[in-house]
């Protein structure tokens, strides 16, 4: 069997170029996840600092309600982002570990996590579009019935 560029991927092990690509991909996936964690921390800090700065004149109850409201609105976004980026970070970590130790089982887990990362984003897109369409339909219906 000649080793052409079209070598079958089911019969051969991963070659050096593929190994290198997987390694770099895993590295950048981890960088992205870490940046997302930092970004989440920054936005939490910004909300707290901005609240302390602008709500000095308000009483504790009102300030607490406003800050709670702002954090509450962000909470859903943070939870989704946290789950997604933990999966991405684990995918990168497992792929890198598998490449170092030549561990097929960990490699499978890593790529499975990468696939799950894209699947969750896709599902979030579907849910968002459905919600937007639902809001649009309700708004049109209300407008029609109110004359």
């Amino acid at each position, binding site marked *: 069997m000649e080793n052409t560029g079209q070598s079958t991927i089911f019969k051969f092990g991963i070659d050096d170029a593929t190994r290198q690509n997987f390694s770099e991909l895993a590295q950048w996936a981890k960088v*992205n996840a870490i940046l997302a964690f930092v970004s989440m921390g920054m936005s939490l800090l910004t909300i707290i600092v901005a609240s302390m700065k602008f709500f000095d004149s308000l009483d504790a109850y009102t300030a607490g309600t406003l800050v709670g409201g702002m954090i509450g609105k962000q909470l859903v976004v943070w939870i989704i982002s946290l789950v997604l980026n933990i999966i991405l970070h684990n995918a990168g970590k497992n792929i890198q570990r598998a490449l170092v130790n030549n561990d097929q089982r960990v490699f*499978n887990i890593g790529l499975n996590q990468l696939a799950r990362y894209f699947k969750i984003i896709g599902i979030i897109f579907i849910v968002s579009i459905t919600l937007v369409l639902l809001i649009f339909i309700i708004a049109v219906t209300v407008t029609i019935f109110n004359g």
Partner: protein
Amino acid sequence: MEDFEMGCLDTLDLEIDGEITASLSQASKWAKFISILIFCFCGLLLLILLIGSRSANFLNGFNSRLQQSGSLVKLNNIPLFIAVVIVAVIIVIVVYYFLFNFSRKVKLAIIAESTDQLNKGLGALKIYFIIYAAFGILGIGISAFSLFKLF
């Protein structure tokens, strides 16, 4: 031939097996879905913008919405606004083109059993992650600057 295969497997134990093919196929499918959705959204945004900018009420409506949301910014220059949105849309399309390319190449790699296409697909996904990281760093920088200004 056997010597070559055994040599490969001795030094590099990892293989693209059935489970990995399934994972790559699933990742490719969802990546294509996400990128096509983003392309559609960008097209729709451009269409709304181009149709809306022809309307005389567009600027007034947009400004009143900005004021309602408590923004101190007032939009005076429609062509500049459209140019900024178009540039942003082009950047988004370029970023998601790499994700689309990953999907296409990996699908081709699975069908044709080609490591060459697989490498191209992985390279495209890597570039997508690199661009995303660059924008992430930019976003964190802007957040840090706003936080610094608050103090």
